[in-house]
């Protein structure tokens, strides 16, 4: 037993890569790759006062701009989905188109869907609960049960794209997007699917959810200057800025992608997960859980720490996360990798964060250009890693790591390598 455990702990001897052949983005930076590249790589924050949050202790957020669900999905379909599914379905459609795949001709039962979300259709639950309290049970919508539950985003993606293979939602709080990618890769390695649509979606911009996050002290309270509120690794950071959106990736085995002549943007080469087992919301101050997830992902990818050139950090802009995470990055990688947090621009997309940042990591590797951390004007002296600030940094990236750590102490990390 001991020998087997040791061997497993040391990881594989041969790497299993999956090709990222398509990506879709519905984020506060806009819809699609082009809008996101323009905004995220220029490092300009999207946070702004939000009329929907007026009267709350924190009344600003990063919202998806100009999103018309009825126009994109058809009104009849749109009225039966929570915004979390609007975002998820639109991002999935983008990713499939980006991959050059045609759902009309693919072998549906071989196409899986794995979506990460933390709060699912929370805002619909909250609205219907309000009707229940105000008018009674006879006024609660029967559609609540096809809008509120967390599984529905994956279900609607299947209905929309005829992706008829294994279909599920995974929920590891703010690590959900990375967890979804990890499980999607496992479905491909096991031969269960030929294509998996993987990613994350979140649309929890409800007054009650935001009030709770504010009262927990998780959110930046910089109400006088929202645009500078999300400032990962900066000495003056005071919390994260809530965001919403979705990101989806089309994943295929490399040989399949190559055989059909697909453009491979990058590869997902490793996945690692762990639990802190420490506290409901605060990170383990030793960073032990985060470190185990990173090392597990590196072992899975058969990559040594010194080979990693870029880290897309969880980098929430909370005082505790950033200092703890930087300590772990320093301990595992030293000072070599170019670290960034794209949350400075798009805020914290919660269950979609890992997926959006996975796509940004893929694009950084593909474009050989690391996006800057917005609002980083004065690096916290305790951070001690090379954080990319002010402008994007051109560089060759042989391997990159995307960190995601969630409430509940749930950690998920992926390794991305070039095509």
């Amino acid at each position, binding site marked *: 037993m001991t020998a087997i455990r040791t061997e497993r702990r040391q990881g594989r001897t041969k790497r299993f890569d999956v090709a990222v052949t398509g990506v879709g983005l519905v984020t506060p930076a806009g819809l699609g790759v082009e809008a996101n590249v323009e905004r995220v790589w220029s490092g300009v924050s999207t946070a702004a006062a939000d009329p929907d949050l007026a009267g709350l202790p924190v009344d600003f957020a990063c919202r998806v701009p100009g999103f018309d669900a*009825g126009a994109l999905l*058809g*009104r*009849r*379909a*749109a*009225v*039966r989905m929570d915004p979390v599914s609007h975002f998820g379905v639109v991002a999935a459609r983008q990713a499939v188109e980006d991959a050059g795949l045609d759902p009309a001709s693919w072998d549906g039962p071989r196409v899986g869907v794995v979506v990460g979300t933390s709060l699912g259709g929370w805002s619909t639950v909250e609205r219907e609960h309000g009707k229940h309290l105000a*008018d009674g049970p*006879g*006024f*609660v*919508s*029967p*559609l609540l049960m*096809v809008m509120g539950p967390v599984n529905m985003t994956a279900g609607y993606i299947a209905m929309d794209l005829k992706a008829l293979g294994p279909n599920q939602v995974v929920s590891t709080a703010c690590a959900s997007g990375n967890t979804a990618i990890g499980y999607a890769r496992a479905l491909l390695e096991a031969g269960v699917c030929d294509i998996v649509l993987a990613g994350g979606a979140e649309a929890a911009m409800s007054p009650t959810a935001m009030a709770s996050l504010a009262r927990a002290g998780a959110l930046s309270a910089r109400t006088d200057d929202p645009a500078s509120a999300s400032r990962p690794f900066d000495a003056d950071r005071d919390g994260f800025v809530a965001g919403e959106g979705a990101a989806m990736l089309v994943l295929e085995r490399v040989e399949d992608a190559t055989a059909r002549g697909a453009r491979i943007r990058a590869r997902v080469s490793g996945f690692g997960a762990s639990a802190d087992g420490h506290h409901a919301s605060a990170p383990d101050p030793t960073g032990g859980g985060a470190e185990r997830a990173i090392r597990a992902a590196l072992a899975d990818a058969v990559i040594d720490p010194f080979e990693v050139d870029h880290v897309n950090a969880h980098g929430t802009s909370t005082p505790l996360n950033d200092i703890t995470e930087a300590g772990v990055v320093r301990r595992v990688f030293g000072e070599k990798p170019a670290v960034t947090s794209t949350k400075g621009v798009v805020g914290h997309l919660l269950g979609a964060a890992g997926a959006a940042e996975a796509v940004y990591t893929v694009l950084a590797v593909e474009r050989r250009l690391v996006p800057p951390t917005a609002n980083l004007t004065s690096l916290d002296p305790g951070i001690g890693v090379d954080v990319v600030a002010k402008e994007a940094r051109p560089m060759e990236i042989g391997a990159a790591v995307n960190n995601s750590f969630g409430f509940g102490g749930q950690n998920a990390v992926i390794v991305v390598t070039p095509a």
Partner: protein
Amino acid sequence: MSAHQDRLFALVTDKLGVLPEELNTTATFDSLDLDSLALIELSVIVQKEFGVQIDETALTPDNTLGDVLATIDAKAPVA
């Protein structure tokens, strides 16, 4: 034409997503692609907006918005 028609049609478009050009008083719910969940939602809308409890027999796939309007006309409280 029922005095309530314009308001009911606007609600069906807004809440159930049926396009205005699809709406008339004779099309069956089945032909409008309104399933059982949508029909229960319709009963909630009518109760909330018109104060009228809809008889379940008026909400089968073979019924029409004309049937619903007839019920509203018969039962709606006089404004």
